């Protein structure tokens, strides 16, 4: 039975636990032992240390949701030299030595969907602010860039007045949003870019008595945002299904280990719909972003 190790950006957050759940479902189904280990903070070096120890232990496959796109390239090569499969999922590693990449959804589709939701909520015009997580998180920064791109192209009446960084901490997000609300009295909307920023921003808006006047949306999971969707502060947020992402990753690894090549469109047992594969970048793509609103907020992840 092959052992598949997954090193998330950090442990202790529901998002990666959900991915782990998907990994384990697939592990049970396809016969693989899943090892889930990661640093307790999103530390590049901590992640590298875990990957190194897993390589030294000669697991069958090791992979990450990367805290840095380049910092693990040397380790990917080392894995390859030891005959260990190296993959990245959720947040990718650059370079030629990555055997498999699994992408939740196209970054572009995700960012565009968020902005479309925002535009609907604020009527297509007004001042908005972004609240992000860590200022150095690669994928968050990429999404922000794409969101701005969408605004420039499609919603010229929307103006991004500020981008703030609150880390992975809901209290900081609440506080920063509170400050934004006073610093920009005409603010119409707040976009939370990571899973703590959206509920934090919603809480600040709620506290300031601006529910309904300032729209909040962004990228987060249903569990975190449920209270705010139920009380009407937030209409919709955007995500994908992390359990499915984990599941797909594990399936993809099993395919690779069995030397079964991917088609451009793949049917995955246990997943609905077809999964696209890009041979040039060795990337499996889970699917379209998922809009979460009152109708489907009972999803549990």
């Amino acid at each position, binding site marked *: 039975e092959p052992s598949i190790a997954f090193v998330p950006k950090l*442990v*202790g*957050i*529901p998002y*990666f*636990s959900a991915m782990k759940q998907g990994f384990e479902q697939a592990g049970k189904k396809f016969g693989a032992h899943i090892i889930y280990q990661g640093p*307790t*903070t999103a530390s590049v070096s901590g992640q590298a240390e875990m990957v190194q120890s897993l390589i030294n232990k000669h697991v069958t496959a090791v992979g990450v949701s990367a805290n840095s796109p380049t910092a693990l390239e040397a380790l990917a090569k080392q894995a390859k030299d030891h005959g260990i499969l190296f993959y990245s999922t959720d947040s990718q590693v650059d370079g030629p030595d990555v055997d498999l990449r699994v992408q939740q959804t196209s970054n572009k589709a995700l960012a565009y969907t968020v902005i479309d939701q925002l535009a609907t909520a604020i009527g297509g015009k007004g001042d908005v602010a972004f609240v992000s997580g860590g*200022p150095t998180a690669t994928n968050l920064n990429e999404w922000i860039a794409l969101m701005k791109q969408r605004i420039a192209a499609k919603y010229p009446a929307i103006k991004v007045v*500020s*981008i*703030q*960084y609150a880390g*992975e*901490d*809901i*209290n900081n*997000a*609440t*506080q*920063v949003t*509170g*400050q*934004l*609300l*006073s*610093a*920009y*009295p005409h603010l119409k909307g707040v976009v939370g870019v990571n899973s*703590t920023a959206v*509920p*934090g921003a919603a*809480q*600040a808006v*709620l*506290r*300031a*008595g601006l529910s309904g006047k300032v729209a909040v949306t962004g990228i987060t999971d249903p*569990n*975190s945002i*449920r*209270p705010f969707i139920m*009380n009407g502060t937030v209409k919709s947020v955007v995500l994908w299904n992390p359990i499915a992402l984990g599941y797909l990753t594990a399936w993809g690894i099993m395919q690779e280990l069995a030397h079964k090549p991917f088609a451009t469109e793949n049917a995955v047992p246990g997943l609905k719909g077809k999964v696209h594969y890009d041979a040039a970048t060795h990337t499996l793509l889970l699917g379209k972003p998922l809009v979460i609103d009152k109708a489907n907020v009972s999803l549990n992840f």
Partner: protein
Amino acid sequence: MSAAVMGAPKVPRLRLPQGREALLLITLAVLVAGIGMFSHGAFWSRINLDNLFVSSAITLIPAIGMTVVILTGGIDVSTGSMLGLTAAIGGSCFAAGWSLAATVPVFLLAGAGLGLVNAVLIIKGKIPPVIATLGTLSIYRMIVFIVLGSNWITQIPPVLTRVFVVDHVLWLPVVALIALGFVIVASLYLRYFRWGRHVYALGNNEEAARLAGIRPERIKLAAYVMLGLLTGFAALLTLGQSPMVQTSTGSGFVLQVIAAVVLGGTSLSGGRGTMAGTLLGTLVVQVVDDGIVLLHIQPFWNGVALGVIILAAIGLSSRRDAGGM
């Protein structure tokens, strides 16, 4: 070299607090005036003031306990983990459907209990406070991970937010009023009550205090337990501020608390400092932090601005405080 360092006499002074409070007050006034002016009134908006008062209060409440602990010559660096752990324990009760009335004591007891663990390690185990609490900092955080099992708790009753944060009494959010009340009581207690004076005596010279019949162990025990209790209360308030418990809840918090206390003029070697200083220190930190967003400073420059303002404001006042040569 400061005059005080050489042990040389200086002009008579009436009481402990040095010019530090006055200097902090001036610093605060300058910051408030400056930010008030350049933020085009945004600083004075209700939303901002509430925001400021609520976050100040949540820092201030444990800072009161921390001041006492540092006055005794000790320190507790586990406060952030303690806050996280009490929030996790209390939050689990909420998640299990406990009522507010049943859960509030859980927060306070959990906090006091964790404080007691620190106290016992320090007093009975004779472990230097930094080491003991560095140890429990990691251990408490580990327990947070175990308790939460990497799920965030979101079932926090909204009434917490309403009661502590949204409702106002006398123009202040309830938390702020509570914090202010605590500061006043603690300040009076330290200043006018026998036990409070013993805290200072102990921090000044433990050996002398022991020889004078003061029992250092009891005072230390009370100080650490009280800090735990206040931290437990702050955990409850944190959930009123943002209704979610994360595994990272409270990390980075202790530095903020210690910074406020030390900035307020409390000496890390003990025996010197006041509650008023801690109050002002807390406000200065929060106002600087607030001003950076209000002044529309580019986010990447936040840290630089924060660092420079602290160095400038504190550096100038410290130099003055030390009185030159």
